[in-house]
């Protein structure tokens, strides 16, 4: 292949494609359009996506985006687009620094916005850095001290982003007493809770529980205690009456977690797994065992 000819062809292609793409939009143009009569939210979203966030226009772009996100007269879809683009700007840490305090204040205000999607987006953003104001709002909502700003399962998920574990007592209660997605999320939120190891063991082994719930319990147990998980995983894999999805997940966890493999994998176990591959009808289990065999041989 003629590499230089390829390069020239590529340069030509870039020119053609750039010419066909919508031109970058200036922040002034966005602000002007937002202030105009007959503005359209979809058009605002398109303009926001075409902001270059480059060196020359970064500050004015961020200013325009903050104003749009705070403007309750603008539709939620456009305010959400502005929030997303502000998130993009955050990736230029040094340039974004001077706006950071105002941005956090805005997000805290939007956390109680009338629109649930705007509220959720603001809380999503704030909890990524464990913002204490957002965590308190969520905790109050879950304990019915304050308004529930988002559905309970979402609140648990966001509250669990606090690495300090201050909400662990709430999660422990919900993991045993709640139902459906709230219970699942509470169980996930206990991922690093050593005190919950007996609960994880019980749930992972209980065939009366939903497979999804048992899987979460098993992964949590692997996380906090590989030796305890090893015992559970061994039983899951070798029990012919067990759910195939769980068995596949257990084989996969054994394969990819050395601390578990060293407790479980013996010649006898590998031979049993090989037999299982020959007899199971589950494609997932077969492929998990295939990966296991590549690492540990076939007994």
């Amino acid at each position, binding site marked *: 292949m003629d*590499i230089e000819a390829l390069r020239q062809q590529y340069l030509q292609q870039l020119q053609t494609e750039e010419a066909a793409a919508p031109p970058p939009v200036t922040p002034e143009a966005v602000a002007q359009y937002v202030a105009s009569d007959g503005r359209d939210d979809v058009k605002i979203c398109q303009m926001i996506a075409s902001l*270059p966030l480059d060196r020359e226009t970064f500050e004015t772009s961020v200013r325009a985006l903050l104003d749009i996100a705070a403007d309750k007269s603008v539709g939620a879809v456009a305010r959400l687009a502005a929030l997303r683009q502000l998130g*993009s700007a955050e990736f230029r840490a040094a340039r974004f620094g001077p706006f950071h305090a105002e941005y956090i204040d805005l997000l805290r205000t939007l956390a109680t916005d009338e629109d649930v999607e705007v509220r959720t987006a603001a809380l999503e953003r704030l909890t990524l850095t464990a913002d204490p104001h957002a965590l308190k709002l969520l905790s109050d909502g879950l304990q019915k001290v304050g308004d529930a700003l988002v559905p309970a399962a979402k609140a648990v998920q966001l509250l669990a982003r606090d690495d300090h574990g201050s909400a662990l007592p709430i999660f422990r209660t919900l993991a045993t007493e709640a139902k459906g997605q709230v219970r699942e999320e509470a169980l996930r939120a206990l991922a690093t809770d050593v005190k919950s190891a007996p609960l994880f063991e019980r749930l992972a082994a209980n065939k009366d529980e939903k497979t999804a719930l048992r899987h979460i319990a098993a992964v949590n147990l692997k996380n906090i205690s590989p030796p305890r998980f090893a015992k559970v995983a061994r039983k899951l894999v070798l029990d012919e009456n067990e759910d195939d*999805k769980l068995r596949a997940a257990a084989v996969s966890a054994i394969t990819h977690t050395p601390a578990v493999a060293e407790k479980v994998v013996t010649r006898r176990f590998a031979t049993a797994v090989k037999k299982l591959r020959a007899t199971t009808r589950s494609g*997932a289990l077969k492929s998990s065992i295939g*990966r296991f065999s*590549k690492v540990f041989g076939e007994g």
Partner: protein
Amino acid sequence: MVNVSVKFPSYDSQGRAFVTWRPVEVKLTLAGAPAGASNVPVTVSAKSSAGGGALAFATTLTHLGTPSINLNLPANGAPVSVWVGGLYPKASASYGDVVLEVRAAAGNQLLGSQALMVRVRKNADDLTAAERDRFLSALATLNGSGTGRYTSFRDMHVGGPPDLEAHGGPGFLPWHRAYLLDFERELQAIDASVSLPYWRFDKAAPNLFSRAFIGLPDSLNRVQFSAGHPLLGWVAFGAAGIQRGRGVGPTTVPALFSEAQTLNTGGSLHASYSTFRNMQGNPHGSAHMSHGSGWITSPPTAPRDPVFFLLHCNVDRLWAKWQWAAKLHDPADPRSFTPAAGFPPGHRLNDALWPWCGPLAAPRPTTAPGGTLAASPMTAAPGLSPKCRDMIDYLGTVAAAHQAFAYDDVPFQK
């Protein structure tokens, strides 16, 4: 009996050789020739499996190699050099799918051979099922139980002073190139046939955004995988599973700058790095935010989601592609990076990159998670403690050393 030994400059611990588009110098040595025999004419070529890699040969370091070459090997056993690289754009799909063969020009007898792999970073959406599965298995193993080396990649990409090292100036691209290389080398220590794939975020990626590959989020932004998927046990920061917004699905074309809009400005290629690096906001930041919410949307949490590494691989590919298109690989050329003055430490051409250089004095980070850069059996470059400048000429276009990685759509051009 006459035979030819084929010696690559480097092998891994299992005696395997890997190349990219960038040729390496291979020594051919004739043995077993009768005393007083004259030189032996040979043909060096490659035998490829269907869909496998292909090789190019030359007597100098060049992009103008050909699929075969004729050489005369001295009967006295003096080695002869031949430069061997992948024949662009034919990369391997597995180890050994291409074999270098040395045959006698007269009679075509096979005198020597070496199986190898043309190992390059590929579009994740185009991987074969076997390539995908090897990558996912290595990734799952590196993630392990959420402890060990994976955590250092998480701890390098966090808020505060480390954030300023990674995102606080023009060192953004060199820093992430070193970070990805470190990560890829850890994957290759688990499975040497793996290379880091990239998410081409200005196109739809239905194979990547599937339950069989990088997963799809449910209504609660919990990423769901197919049964038995290696990443089902993914743990990061003590939390099981992955939280990712639903902004990108199998058919989504994210609203961000295309490749052409990233490399070009005002109808022509960015003339220097100082304007090209604007891509840090759009498309880079926009690609993070295209998911809407979840770990990937914030610098301190982004490495908790494995798609982060594929996203950044594409960011690095875009830089590599611009470097090729602009022919700017020489760190000494002021257009290939930025002037030395006017930027914070860590972002100037001769600055050492944290954390691979070790702990530094405040305001730079005072800890160094992960230690030095992972070594590669294929090359010593860019060293264990690279500087910004070391990450520019990754293919060894100007420098003598290459970094043993390349992209499927970015050729080597000397």
